[in-house]
């Protein structure tokens, strides 16, 4: 038992930072799992370079993982870390500017060599030169203590022993924040099942780190963060990409359709392909296609055959898929396209987040080519949005674009598990019989004869006798689906396709406004992954006395039917976005309201405090 003092905290933000090869993502991930099991609410922000291994010890090679956990509901991974674990000088230098004065820094002094210091432009070690005086610095020789702890492992090389330093750090932090380590032990046992030496070394380093915390005089106090009050239920921690994958599988199950994914690897979407590729036992077929175009093409082919065709990508891939999505608009077949957005244009910032594909999703195709567009607001919401995308795609026989992003994809939060049986019934009716008669009175099939309510055309799949028909990208005659170049027919079909998408608004929930005062004059409207930061900022602004309302759009095309009415209720509408004002442009164009943009494209989510200032300022101006 520890004899040290234990202090209670309500929230902590920790950032693990090190070289790309130091295992910081794994360390952060494990710490997160331990924290989730303890019942804290949490939110994470992994941040890593696009290069797999940038030169060791350099600034471009720094990889970090930030975790915000609390005894209450948290909305963001936190603006500023309370604790920074810096595994080398580059990690310290790259992250120091985000640290408020008074924060705790744990540095791995073994890596603060002359050579490593000079790689990042330090003339002398900041640990010794007094420049970190305003922080609580804990210099720990993480590497050498870990190696020392593994002295008895004679079969391991020094390099292999050094690699266990991240587990040592994890053990130390587990002690410091009173985290249970059983989950990590089980994880290591399964990961290194085939390599008992490495397994033992990692377990030993983990415990050595924990014991080091308990015995060293350098750490006088350890901390506890009590579980958060959460809705009753069973929870797990989940990243956006995993939640999206699971949502697709659950929705396919509820639709009683086989799920077919055609995909080409691209950051930050590839994890969906990886996850689904491992789920064949649930009837999921995945194909790693030769390119983005083939990925969506194969998915569309599968949809034609009666499967649930899905493709996953990021911005550059969405550009390549545009023509095929246009074909799907013309064929009026279900198709789910998941765009996990990243910084652009072109290759842009592959591992950084952005939400600048909104206009591409809505309009990035030739001709009048409307598709449904939805966006999840949190990592766990990626599950629900996947189910919603499948509902829209199968009901309306249309492509649906899901706009997630790198922040949601890799970030995680606790997810209250839904009951599969309680998910919507998405079962699909395939056409089975002719739906018309010809001039001679004989039964015929008209592939473009629409459902009067949804305007969806029949989904008549090959193998159904009597419904043989041909469809294609050339304009089709209304009802019969034959090729038609008739001007009036094209006008009518263009309007019908648009009306079908507009009509989806009838089945989506109205835009809800959260305004506890009921007297707000300023409304903050966001979409997608900015939900957490906006909600946190609104909370801060309200705490400072501002009356402000918040609404968040999950449906971007069509918008909820009451959107215009909601916007017009407020004197001022602020639209924070990680682009240069794409939603604001749409709202202004569609509803003639004076929506004002607040934008940031730094590859990182908004900081709540910064956003709170913007909101408070707007509230002040609106009431002046």
């Amino acid at each position: 038992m520890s004899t040290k003092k234990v202090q209670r905290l309500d929230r902590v933000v920790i950032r693990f930072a090190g070289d790309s090869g130091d295992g910081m993502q794994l360390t952060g991930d494990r710490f997160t799992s331990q924290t989730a099991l303890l019942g804290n609410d949490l939110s994470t922000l992994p941040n890593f370079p696009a290069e797999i291994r940038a030169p060791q010890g350099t600034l471009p090679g720094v990889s970090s993982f930030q975790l915000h956990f609390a005894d209450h509901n948290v909305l963001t991974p936190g603006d500023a870390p309370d604790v920074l674990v810096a595994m080398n000088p580059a990690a310290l230098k790259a992250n120091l500017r985000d640290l408020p004065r008074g924060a705790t820094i744990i540095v791995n002094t073994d890596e603060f060599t002359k050579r490593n210091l000079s790689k990042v432009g330090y003339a002398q070690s900041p640990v010794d030169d007094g420049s970190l005086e305003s922080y609580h610095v804990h210099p720990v020789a993480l590497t050498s203590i870990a190696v020392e702890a593994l002295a008895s492992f004679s079969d391991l090389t020094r390099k292999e022993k050094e690699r266990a330093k991240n587990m040592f750090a994890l053990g130390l932090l587990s002690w410091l924040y009173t985290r249970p380590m059983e989950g990590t032990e089980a994880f290591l046992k399964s990961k290194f099942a085939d390599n008992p030496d490495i397994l033992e070394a990692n377990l030993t380093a983990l415990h050595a780190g924990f014991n080091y915390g308990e015995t060293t005089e350098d750490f006088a106090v350890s901390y506890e963060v009590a579980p958060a009050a959460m809705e009753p239920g069973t929870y797990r921690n989940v990243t956006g990409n995993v939640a999206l994958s699971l949502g697709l599988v659950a929705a396919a199950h509820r639709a009683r359709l086989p799920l077919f994914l055609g995909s080409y690897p691209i950051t930050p979407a590839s994890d969906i392909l990886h996850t689904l590729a491992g789920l064949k036992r649930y009837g999921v077929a995945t194909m790693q296609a030769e390119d983005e175009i083939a990925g969506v093409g194969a998915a569309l082919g599968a949809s034609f055959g009666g499967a649930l065709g899905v493709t996953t990508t990021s911005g550059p891939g969405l550009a390549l898929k545009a023509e095929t999505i246009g074909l799907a608009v013309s064929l009026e077949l279900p198709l789910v396209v998941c765009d996990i957005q990243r910084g652009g244009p072109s290759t842009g910032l592959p591992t950084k987040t952005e939400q600048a594909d909104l206009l591409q999703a809505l309009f990035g195709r030739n001709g009048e080519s409307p598709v449904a567009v939805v966006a999840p607001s949190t990592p766990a919401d990626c599950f629900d949005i996947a189910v919603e995308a499948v509902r829209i795609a199968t009901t309306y026989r249309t492509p649906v674009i899901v706009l997630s992003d790198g922040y949601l994809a890799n970030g995680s939060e606790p997810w209250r598990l839904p009951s599969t049986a309680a998910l919507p019934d998405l079962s699909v009716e395939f056409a089975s019989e002719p739906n018309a008669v010809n001039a001679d009175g004989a039964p015929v099939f008209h592939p473009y004869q629409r459902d009067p309510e949804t305007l969806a055309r029949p989904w008549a799949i090959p193998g159904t006798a009597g419904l043989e028909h041909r469809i294609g990208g050339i304009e089709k005659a209304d009802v019969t689906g034959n090729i038609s170049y008739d001007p009036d027919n094209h006008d009518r079909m263009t309007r019908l396709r648009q009306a079908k998408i507009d009509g989806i608004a009838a089945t989506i929930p109205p835009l809800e406004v959260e305004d506890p005062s009921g007297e707000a004059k300023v409304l903050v409207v966001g979409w997608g992954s900015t939900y957490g930061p906006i909600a946190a900022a609104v909370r801060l602004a309200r705490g400072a006395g501002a009356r402000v309302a918040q609404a968040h759009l999950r449906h971007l095309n069509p918008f909820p039917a009451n959107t215009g009415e909601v916007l017009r209720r407020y004197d001022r509408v602020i639209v924070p976005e990680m682009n240069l004002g794409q939603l604001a442009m749409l709202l202004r164009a569609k509803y003639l309201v004076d929506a004002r943009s607040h934008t940031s494209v730094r590859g990182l989510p908004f900081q709540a405090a910064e956003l709170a200032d913007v909101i408070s300022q707007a509230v002040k101006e609106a009431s002046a």
Partner: protein
Amino acid sequence: MTTDLRMPLHLLPADAESGTGSVPLLEAGQALTKKDFTSDQEVRWCPGCGDYAILAAVQGFLPELGLKRENIVFVSGIGCSSRFPYYLDTYGMHSIHGRAPAIATGLAATREDLSVWVVTGDGDALSIGGNHLIHALRRNVNLTILLFNNEIYGLTKGQYSPTSRVGQVTKSTPLGSLDTPFNPVSLALGAEASFVARTMDSDRQHLTSVLRAAAEHRGSALVEIYQNCPIFNDGVFDVLKDRTQAEARILHLVDGQEVAAGDRVVVRDDRGALSLVPRVEADPSRIVVHDVAAQDPSAAFALSRLDSPDLAHVPMGVFRDVARPTYDDALREQVASARTVEVTDADIDALLAGRDTWTVGG
């Protein structure tokens, strides 16, 4: 009607080695005719287009397969040839330029009960869609790909194509085209195709026999069909259609038989290179005897290199027909062997829960 189309629980039936082995057959006593495969759409190719002959041959051949008509699907890209599906009363998709092999791959992968055909042209398959073609062949997806080669872009009104001969004067190459053409057969063999054949629009009997072999083949079957464009490249294959000249120019590829044209035969030299020599001068031990099932594709490739740009000699027939695992069968097998029981709501609940959960009491 709600149809359960889940991935199959059972592996393929034993007779699935044939290209159409997993496609439902007509009931005993039922038969279809060419008329059953003729749609009500007016055919709109130019008068004299080679596509008419190919359409007639395909419509005439399909009943022979004895398959249920509703289980046959034609997928095409863009170009004159790609209008083909509209004229067949089967299921069909006229898709976008070059992408038909990718779309057909998704369809074939999810529906083993379909006979999936791709109709494409030299521009569609070899230019804009080159990547999809080679990868479909590499994967060996169970598709029959009909590549109509007229060595010109017809639908865009007469630009040179990736099979046009060097120096061809067209609207876009007024001083003659500069780039070396593809040999579609060589390309397909290089892409690991398990079945490659060449035939011609005007030779109904040969075309039908090649279609028969291609349909029988399980895996990707590429059939190059020389096809005349009467408007922009008229007569490009005429020397092969003129009976008096054809005999000396066409090297008939018949399994187990010597490769010969007229009084010349193909011989192999010490280094493996093939050449055409008068039969009377040929060393009988060096005369090439065609083996369509040779696992090593180099013999088939060497035959494909006997093409001469002036059509002085052109191999026709099935170059290669070997059995190897198909992508779509293997994918279905992976799913089927992983999915041994029906998935229940409880299974999905367990999947969603994963390994690390915690419970918050109410």
